[in-house]
């Protein structure tokens, strides 16, 4: 085995490090979710409710991953348009046929399970741009202004749908991912600054339309002034992380998860990790993500074609960007947005879609010229 794994650029095999990293993240995520969800699960009577649901979704996701890993990613190039048309339709259908949960309508019901199209939209956009930028006719972002406008138009199309769903975090991820892919594709930096400025203005504008968003921003700098209001979750997150110290209170021993943290099993699960496993655990999770990003980027850099590069980069970016924003919020560097931590936060659609995307990434790695172990 050892002989084999050290063969350079062995074709036809998935990146083993990536696979192990993904499975480690997945298992780690399930364990932490179980711990973080117990208090709220206890209230509902069944402490396993959350973990059974997430576990089931993970199995579904792993099936998707295995299928996708053995399914040539080039088919996504072919079906890019179809996928995106369906996604856009679903996105705009949400406000009409979706159901509300936690005060926002983001999900639609597919039989027994609920489905959140915005999770899918991130990958649809990645596929869309990967397809577009790998096609010589539409790859010019340096001089083709029409092309640039069209690309921004697609981001806006998805962004507007997110806005209709009051799902700002999804809009942010879509905008950032789209922008990153455009930059990689050669978007002149002036457009980046221009759009960045416009985006900032837009966010500021949106922020001013709803005073609660402005308060969230203010609370970031002085959470204790908003202790009973918007500052509450920031303070609770700081208490959780701060209580951890070097090794934490021990697995399952978080106190802040007892509904001090408003979304202990979701947006603030990283705070629970830091409280239970301390600095060591917090760094370990970051390291796993960094490992993942390193493998993802390596796959992108060594993909056998441009589509593979863009696709691998996009998928990796989705995970990396969400992780940065989520941890930024938990560590109160960024204003609270409702961003989930991939592999860790509770969420069925997200889990299935992410694992599916992992399958695609693994599939790309098969034909990638990277050093595999």
């Amino acid at each position, binding site marked *: 085995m050892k002989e084999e794994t050290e063969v350079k650029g062995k074709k036809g095999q998935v990146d083993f490090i990536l696979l192990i990293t993904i499975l480690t993240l997945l298992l780690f995520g399930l364990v932490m979710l179980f711990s973080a969800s117990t*208090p709220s699960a*206890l209230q509902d009577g069944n402490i396993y409710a959350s973990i059974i649901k997430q576990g089931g979704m993970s199995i579904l996701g792993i099936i998707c991953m295995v299928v996708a890993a053995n399914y040539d990613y080039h088919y996504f190039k072919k079906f890019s348009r179809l996928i995106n048309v369906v996604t856009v339709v679903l996105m705009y259908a949400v406000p009409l046929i979706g159901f509300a949960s936690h005060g926002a309508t983001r999900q639609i019901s597919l039989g027994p399970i609920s489905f959140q199209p915005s999770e899918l939209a991130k990958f649809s956009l990645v596929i869309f741009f990967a397809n577009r930028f790998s096609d010589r006719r539409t790859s010019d972002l340096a001089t083709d202004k029409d092309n640039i406008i069209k690309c921004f138009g697609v981001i806006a199309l998805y962004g507007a749908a997110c806005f209709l769903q009051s799902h700002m975090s999804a809009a942010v991820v879509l905008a950032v991912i789209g922008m*990153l892919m455009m*930059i*990689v*594709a*050669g978007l002149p930096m002036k457009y980046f600054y221009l759009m960045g400025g416009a985006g900032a203005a837009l966010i500021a504008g949106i922020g001013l339309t709803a005073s609660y968003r402005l308060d969230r921003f203010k609370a970031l700098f002085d959470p204790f002034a908003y202790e*009973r209001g918007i500052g509450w979750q920031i303070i609770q997150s*700081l*208490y*959780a*992380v*701060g*209580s*951890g*110290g*070097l090794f934490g209170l021990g697995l399952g*021993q978080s*106190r*802040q998860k*007892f*509904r*001090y943290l408003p979304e202990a099993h979701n947006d603030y699960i990283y705070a629970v990790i*830091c409280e239970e496993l*301390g*600095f060591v655990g*917090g*760094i370990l999770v*970051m390291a796993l*993500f*960094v490992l993942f*990003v390193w493998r993802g*980027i390596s796959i*992108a*850099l060594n993909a056998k074609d*441009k589509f593979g*590069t863009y696709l691998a*980069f996009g998928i990796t*970016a989705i995970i*990396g960007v969400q992780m*940065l924003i989520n*941890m*930024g919020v938990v*560590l109160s*560097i960024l204003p609270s947005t409702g961003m989930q931590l991939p592999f860790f936060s509770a969420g069925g659609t997200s889990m299935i879609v992410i694992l599916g995307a992992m399958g695609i990434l693994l599939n790309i790695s098969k034909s990638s010229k990277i050093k595999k172990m």
Partner: protein
Amino acid sequence: MVRKRSSVKKRIKNITAFFLAGVMVLVGRLGWIQFVRGGEYKRLAAEQQTRDSIVSAKRGSIYDRNMKVLAQSATAERVTINPQEIDKHKNAEVVVETLVKILRVDEKDLREKIKRTDRQSVVIKKQVEKSVADRIRKKNIAGIHFEEDSKRYYPYGSLAAQVIGFTGADSQGLEGLENVLDEQLRGIDGRIVAAKDVSNNEMPYKYENYIPAQDGKGVVLTIDETIQRYTEKHLQQAYEENLLGNGGAAIVMDPNTGEILAMAVVPTYDLNEPRVITDQLLLDQLEDMELEGEEYDKAYSAAITKMWRNKAVVDSYEPGSTFKTIVAASALENGVTNEHESFVCTGVRHVANRDIHCWKTEGHGEETFTQGVMNSCNPVFMELASRLGATRFENCFRAFGLTEKTGFTIPGESSGTFHDSLGVVDLATSSFGQTFTITPLQLISAVSAVVNGGNLMKPRIIKAYTDNNGKIIENFEPELVRNVISEQTSVKMRSILEQVVSEGTGKGAYVNGFRIGGKTGTSEKLPRGNGKYIASFVGFAPADNPEIICLLLLDEPRAGATGGGAIAAPAVGKIMEDVLPYLGHKPQYTEENAQAISITVPNIKGKTVAEATEKLQSLGLVISVKGSGEKVTTQIPEAGTKLHKDSVVLAYTQEGEEGGTAIVPNVIGMNMENAQTAFKNAGLVMKIEASGNEKITSEHIAVKQSPQADSEVAEGTNVYVKFVHRDSD
């Protein structure tokens, strides 16, 4: 193409670098939160995660020397509201209506509290009795909650109020022993630290820390409830009879141990309602000030503060002639005189270039030292002080502990003021207890030393500490401060002071059948000439072997008589008359007394009037025939009753004539003439109780009568009255 592909890779690498930079920021931030700010966040988190419930320590009880409970704590409730809950249920009106009606709280105040929706618990009223709380609980109103609380009860109400003191809303001692002994009584509250979630429910962890409460110690006082009650009764009576303008105080002590058996102050108050004045005299005084609104409230609270004060310990005063006991003892101890030395009082003594008068301006004439003490003759004492000289006088003064606090367990004890340097005039005036001040407690301790064999004992009121079950855990023994005079001097002083009561100015304290010694005192309050006096008497019994000593002082008597002999001595006499039998002393009548009381009424029913008269006369009784029949049909009192010599026996000679009764009038304070008229009108016979060979003049007033006023007795019954000179001192 290749160039383009490589630029794509370069940009991917750049973006990755940004990602890694972002991760580094996160790592730094994580370290900052966990290591730099960690301690603080951890503390704050623990604060919100733990529910720190106080387990209240039970406040110790206060007992009298026979373990009668004078103060104890009982469970009560604290009514609180949750403004958030009331806001949610929108039931503010119901809450206000109920609480205002049942708890009688201020409505405006309550509405303000309901508005504080940032809070989950606001206290509305503390120490609510369970029955009252139950009335609210029964209504089951959302937003009203109950917490455990405790309330202090004083089963004897006003008994020893100024000694015991009371507690506040949080059961903290505010006055008296409740205040001084707060630390011992209060105990140490325990805590339960339990983990709780955001809704205040317990976390499912074994994360609990229990620190048990240490209940407060019980305190056993040296006070005897019965003696205290007697003392208060007679002090109160003296207070009312003499319309005291500035209250009064009495201390009963065991002279041999320094144990306080009773300590009473008037006007007094109910410890269960310490902020209410119930004393009628005090209320009248306030009324007389004719104040309104705020001014009245101010005067009212000033009066309350004053009545809380333990006058017996806190207020220093000029002791007047009671102090002569100390001077006499010092003079005998230092050998500057003896009981039989002869003095002459001309009514005045020339000191330096001033004339200092005796209280009896015409003078006492020739008298022995003993008679000088009995007469409370000022010139005799000026002479003694002069013989002692300033230095010895001052040393004696110090030796008797009159310049230092006694170290008694009552807050605010004072030690009075004495001359920095004793001039000739100061020495002369000091000899009869003027121009310096001491506290009643200092005086009674000093006089105890005079009569107990010479030992100055530390006065004390705490006998022992107990655990919360009343079991004694710490006992306190009598403390000797120092030996002041010799046993011989003390014996002489006891004899002299007994004569003061039996024949001298202290006659008012004489109780038939008991040997009582004592000394009167009257001091004019400053500024002199304003007619305000403090009348006092210090008495002890039995005179040959004192077991109790009592000091009583009446501040600003306003009903005429102001002399200590006239008003204070009789009160002490009454206390002795009640307390001595309680302590197991049986009256020991002298031969003459015994004979006087031992006449047994014979049966005269059926006898002729002449026979009956002869029979009664032969026994020393007087017959009073009612009706015109020949034979006696009914007699009052019945045969077998024991009577004094010369008592009247009513003999009814006709059926239906009998039954004439009379209500004994109150003659206390009257002169002899008025008293005689009062008895005549009531159909009773006044008998003057023997009091030496002093001639009774219109200056003498009645200080004691037997039977008591308002008793219903047979017509013609003898009423014995004791008269003393109104200014006798």
